[in-house]
């Protein structure tokens, strides 16, 4: 078989594969240009939702009911302080002086006066948090969002956030801990704490949505775009069929 015919075979198979993929997309009744992988995404979303109902939400509910408020507050503050370190780095990369300064100030104050981040003294001093991750940094550098992707377990993303994910994982200081049991333990605690914070909110969303998948997608994509534009996106933002930045 010549190289030429091998190439044409590959091209033919690639073409067929594209057709099949397009077919899969065409089965979605009401396609959204920002969500070409909708049928795949809906499958993963369903899996995540089932996992949440079966495991994550019950564990978070148990955690909320079994621990005192001050304890949970301390846990949230601790992880928030670690997050502020990564926010400082990203605000720096985005050349946002004020936000960088606030983030550094928050970490310094909360790590010392706030006893290793357990108390959020900086917020009481009106130093605002400016959350930033590497996905946001890429967005502010002009990288487009790309299609919407729901990842197993992790949930809603855009392609840009997926690309940034390995960097953000490195930026999460919990992942820098060498001792395995400590790292696993803290990761689980971080996730449970996060879910516990949104138990009531989750119930409200549950009651508000006609189709939870679309509700989450449309909120997430608007929110991401709004962050990139720093709360001031151009007007086509309010047209959901517009392609997101």
């Amino acid at each position: 078989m010549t190289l030429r015919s091998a190439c044409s075979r590959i091209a033919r198979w690639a073409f067929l594969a594209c057709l099949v993929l397009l077919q899969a997309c065409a089965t979605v009744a009401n396609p959204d240009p920002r969500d070409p992988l909708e049928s795949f995404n809906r499958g993963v979303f369903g899996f995540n939702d089932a996992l949440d109902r079966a495991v994550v939400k019950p564990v978070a509910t148990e955690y909320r009911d079994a621990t005192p408020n001050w304890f949970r507050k301390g846990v949230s503050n601790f992880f928030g302080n670690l997050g502020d370190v990564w926010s400082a780095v990203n605000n720096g990369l985005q050349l946002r002086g004020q936000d960088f300064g606030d983030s550094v100030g928050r970490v310094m104050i909360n790590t010392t006066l706030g006893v290793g981040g357990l108390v959020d003294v900086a917020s009481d001093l009106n130093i605002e948090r400016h959350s930033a991750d590497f996905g946001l940094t890429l967005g502010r550098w002009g990288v487009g969002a790309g299609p919407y992707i729901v990842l197993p377990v992790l949930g809603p993303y855009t392609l840009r956030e997926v690309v940034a994910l390995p960097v953000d994982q490195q930026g999460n200081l919990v992942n820098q801990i060498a001792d395995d049991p400590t790292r696993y333990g803290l990761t689980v605690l971080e996730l449970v704490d996060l879910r516990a914070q949104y138990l009531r909110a989750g119930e409200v969303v549950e009651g508000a949505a006609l189709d939870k998948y679309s509700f989450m997608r449309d909120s997430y994509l608007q929110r991401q775009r709004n962050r990139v534009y720093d709360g001031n996106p151009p007007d086509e933002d309010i047209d959901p069929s517009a392609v997101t930045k």
Partner: protein
Amino acid sequence: MKRNFLRTLGLIVLMAVGLVGGAQANDEAPDAMIKRLSVDVLDTIKADKALRSGDMVKLVALVDERIMPNVNFQRMTASAVGPAWRQATPEQQKRLQEEFKILLVRTYAGALAQVSTQTIAMKPLRASPEDKEVLVRTEIKGGGDPIQLDYRLEKTPGQGAGWRIYNLNVLGVWLVETYKSQFSQEINAKGLDGLILSLSDRNKANAKKG
């Protein structure tokens, strides 16, 4: 990222915080009106133990009484429904508004249950006196990231008739737009009556949960 997204979701439901009413003063500026309503509702909740502990009946009553008179609900429903609104019969339009209203009032009420120590800060209004539609931008403060909360308001025709809200935005997420694709999905699959039925089923399921 994940953390921020969950935060968004949580805060979507905080959208009601500033959306509050009372008697309208003549020729009140739109940002002054939003400020008055926000402070009023936040104070009402902080002062009432039943409201703070999430008494749904009282919260729904609060939303109905203070918020709804300041909302152009017909416009909100029409833009969420999209082009199909013009093809709807007056009866269908009435039913859509009724069911959507029940859904949103309950959502606001659930959101208000989350209010604790927040305060509201106004951002400068960029509008000229002859504007008929304005964007009022606010922030809710109280620990962590400030929560962006913006309103679109329209001037009601007539002297001193005041301003009415027709859309709102929590952390960059516009309420009407979040319902748009869900609504068009239902309409494409099952028509306008199908959408009305889905809304009323949702409301019935919510009512059962109490």
